């Protein structure tokens, strides 16, 4: 019992450290960029007098000593206050919150499609010609820019065949092509890892023991190897979520959909630093949540793991 408690405490400490680290990093990043933060935000074109700039600085609290700024920033975070976007004249939480929905929709659907595709490929295309086709497809998909895949799908299914709408976000039909586009690279990666994991498991001695008991190949895969494959795929979860988020930014741009992609891009191009900091904190939060979930799930799937290796990096070789 106490071991579980120690582990939970450990996880909690890691969570706090990562979030704190991200916040500090975001805070520092905007203090070290070349040029003064206000001038950057206003842009090179702005012809504004120093007094006005000072006024803005005071409004944003940038004239206080750095340590005070830092502490009040951290304090704000604890209340869920990510600051205020000067350019949009809105709290950052509102800026992000408004666009969160469409992105979550897209990402969730993409993940679902990816899991189904990957499982199908790993279970049914394990040998022979089908396997060759799937392996080649995975290579091509992982080597292609996700936005190019999106454009291709658009060109073929929307413009040429007219099956799906070209842009917009009103109807559920508009969600299909973007979700499939986003799902493909993720499916390719999961499929690869899953298949390699299943194959590796079946090369081990226990596979022979299972066959020697009279098991059918289906039983071997479903009751034994799949779990081994899933264990290796699980280590990739954080990376995959990151992939989905990054991909979402690109896919939303290709399909002209509202969402975090639009917010992020606008914030970067307009140098809206508070919003950028907010996006960084959001990424850190998502990362932390995903990792905690994986931490809790992993020992259930692979009980050999002790209480070691938090936030383990996925095996490098699995990337490509």
């Amino acid at each position, binding site marked *: 019992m106490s071991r579980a408690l120690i582990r939970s405490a450990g996880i909690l400490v890691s969570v706090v450290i990562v979030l704190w680290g991200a916040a500090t990093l975001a805070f520092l990043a905007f203090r070290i960029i070349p040029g003064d933060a206000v001038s950057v935000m206003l842009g090179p074109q702005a012809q504004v007098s120093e007094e006005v700039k000072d006024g803005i600085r005071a409004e944003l609290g940038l004239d206080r000593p750095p340590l005070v700024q830092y502490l009040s920033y951290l304090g704000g975070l604890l209340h869920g206050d990510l600051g205020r976007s000067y350019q949009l004249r809105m709290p950052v939480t509102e800026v992000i919150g408004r666009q969160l929905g469409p992105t979550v929709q897209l990402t969730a659907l993409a993940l679902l499609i990816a899991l189904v595709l990957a499982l199908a490929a790993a279970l049914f295309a394990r040998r022979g010609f089908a396997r060759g086709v799937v392996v080649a497809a995975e290579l091509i998909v992982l080597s292609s*820019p996700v936005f190019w895949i999106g454009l291709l799908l658009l060109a073929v299914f929307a413009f040429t065949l007219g099956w799906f709408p070209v842009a917009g976000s009103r109807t559920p039909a508009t969600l299909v092509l973007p979700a499939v586009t986003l799902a493909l690279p993720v499916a390719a990666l999961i499929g690869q890892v899953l298949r390699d994991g299943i194959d590796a498991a079946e090369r081990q001695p226990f596979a022979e023991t299972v066959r020697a008991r009279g098991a059918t190949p289906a039983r071997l895969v479903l009751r034994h190897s799949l779990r081994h494959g899933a264990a290796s795929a699980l280590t990739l979860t954080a990376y995959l979520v990151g992939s989905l988020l990054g991909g979402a930014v690109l896919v939303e741009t290709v399909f002209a959909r509202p969402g975090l992609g639009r917010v992020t891009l606008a914030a970067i*191009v307009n140098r809206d630093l508070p919003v950028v900091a907010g996006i960084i904190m959001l*990424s850190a939060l998502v990362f932390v949540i995903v990792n905690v979930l994986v931490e809790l799930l992993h020992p259930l799937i692979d009980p050999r793991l002790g209480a070691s290796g938090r936030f383990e990096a996925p095996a490098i070789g699995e990337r490509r």
Partner: protein
Amino acid sequence: MKAAGLWIAGLYLALVALAAFAPDLLATHDPLQTDVRAALQPPSGEHLFGTDQSGRDVLARVVHGAARSAGIGLLATALALVAGLAVGALSGIAPRWADAVLMRVTDILLAFPEFLVALIVVAVLGPGGANVAIAVTIAAVPVYIRLARTQTRTLRVAEHVEAARILGVGRMRAFIRHVVPGVLGSLSVLATIGIGSAILAAAGLSFLGLGPAEPQPEWGLMLAGGRNVLGQAWWISVFPGLAITLTVISATVLGRALRARMEGRAA
């Protein structure tokens, strides 16, 4: 079959290198030359890849874009490899606590795909061609740090290194002759595969408009440019995308073959 694939990959990469160093050998038109009358023409004998909205020859732009688009992948990977090797090897021989801290940070960075890290760096630094290069380099570094450190740690205490020391081989000599080659070998393999990730990350940032500005030919940027006329002129986006994809596939295939060969030797 495999050998044929490797040859094709190698040839294609040679082609890309040629395009980067001597683009005029492959493209007859001027990539920046506009001709509004010849805008949006499909692929033909005159313009093998067609023309874009400003009448510029797409083939010329793809060829001239190779230097920037593929080059950035190569540059970022090379820099990241050197930086990663230095930091990783040092961490491998550093005291336990320093190594642990560095590895924890690296692991967190590694959990993010390169594109996302690069995006965040660009978010901080601002858009621009140079910033994209910096961002992609920074995004690529953690992988090399981790591999260099793990290999250094493992090889330092590897049995064959210990055996050499027992035989009387000096510490420095054993390190240089047994540990370093192993580390370099692993990193080189990773780099070959990593060039692909770097190219994709850079192309993604350019596609979003965060990279080099018009009228510079750059593959990601060209893809974005063709998006709005996708219905009428698919060739503006498809060919640059094809170039990216083929380059990344070739690098990946060669990298995997190299890895298989290295593992086969050490088996």
